[in-house]
């Protein structure tokens, strides 16, 4: 049996996917999760706002864990970036709840999502640092700065592909080798 915190987050996620963020009330969440309103307030003293923020954070963390799982066993920096960006892009495009809310309530979602994407960027930078440290960098390039830079680029391209088709392996490979790595790697 999942703990009540997780049940509340999952319930909020389903309600938001069904009715949108604005129309999701704590009553809906309590009913969906099978817990009382009192339990919700005990778990999230900040009430509705805290529940919604925690749900966005939870969904982003789940996305990140999926990404890490997808990259298990990949060994080179280049491969990690290529496979990671393609996977992340596909997840985002096929993420029905995210896409629906971005279409109907971007004003409510984006501030929270931006905050979470900053955390996501820091996690990605930490993750990439292991790979960057094993890579032969251009003289004068600091591995931490390089990891932070790469994480920024990854987040930028997956959120806003611009001119790129991130479903095309040839384009992604070109992008990783030129825009992402050309200035960093020997």
């Amino acid at each position, binding site marked *: 049996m999942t703990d009540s915190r997780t049940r509340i987050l999952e319930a909020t996620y389903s309600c938001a996917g069904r009715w949108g963020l604005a129309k999701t009330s704590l009553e809906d969440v309590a009913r969906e999760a099978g817990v009382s309103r009192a339990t919700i307030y005990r778990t999230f003293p900040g009430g509705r706002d805290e529940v919604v923020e925690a749900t966005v954070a939870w969904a982003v963390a789940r996305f990140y864990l999926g990404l890490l799982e997808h990259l298990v066993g990949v060994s080179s920096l280049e491969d990690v970036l290529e496979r990671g960006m393609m996977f992340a892009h596909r997840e985002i495009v096929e993420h029905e709840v995210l896409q629906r809310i971005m279409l109907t309530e*971007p004003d409510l979602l*984006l501030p929270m999502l*931006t905050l979470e994407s900053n955390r996501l960027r820091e996690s990605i930078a930490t993750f990439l640092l292991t790979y960057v440290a094993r890579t032969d960098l251009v003289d004068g390039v600091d591995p931490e700065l390089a990891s*932070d830079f790469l994480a920024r*680029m990854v987040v930028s391209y997956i959120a806003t592909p*611009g*001119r790129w088709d991130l479903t095309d392996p040839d384009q992604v490979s070109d992008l990783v080798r030129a825009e992402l790595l*050309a*200035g960093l790697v020997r």
Partner: protein
Amino acid sequence: MSPMPEVAGSPNRLRLVDATLVCLARYGVAKLTVDDLAREAGLSRATVYRTFPGGRDEILQAVVDTEASRFFSALAVRLGGADNLESALVGAISEATARLEEHEALGFLIEHEPELVLTHLAFSGGDQVLAAMSDFVAPFLARWMTPEAAGRAAEWVIRIVLSYVMSPSDSLSLSDEAAVSNLVATLILPGVLALADLRSPSAINISPYGAGGAGPAATTGPLERPSGASPDLSRSRTLLSISSSTFDPTGIIDPPEEEAAS
């Protein structure tokens, strides 16, 4: 940061736009009223509506257009005046960062009404802004590389600036010109030069931004200034249009008009 030089035209229009900027920096968009900005500008409500018949919404659109024009004009000065690629990049990145970071109205909105800004920077809104900015910057970079490479390089550099401005880094501030020079020298310039080097077998043609693929004969070495070449401003201006009808920098100035109010 000095405002765009006053061009002949309706002084009330710019006066109202600047008064609105002051109000926005103080309390944002939601609380903005025509009364407040009329008072700030020292003009009557009647004059405000004569200048902007559409009222508050039309003024806000004029603010966006004016600020975009000021921003792009300043970028054009730095990009057009540079005589090598490195100083073009350092100048443009420093200028863009300073203007974005020191913009008090924008700063208030990012802090208190972030949804108004963010919808233009992520997902499909981000794609549009990125395309408009790339289309503006690319022709300047095309003095040193093919149009295709310039388009890629411009988009890439703009992503870097937006990322560091929207989420400042502890270890790297782009408002520090020395840090920008260092970042350009170690990371950005090598990246741009790699993009410019279309001998790379991996280079594939993905240029939706225009004809692209001009032969190598059309360009000169990345670090020399091409003789006699100057950025084609008219092209940039047309390309700049997010919505071409409202985004013409010359359109921010009204025809001269007698002011008799207040």
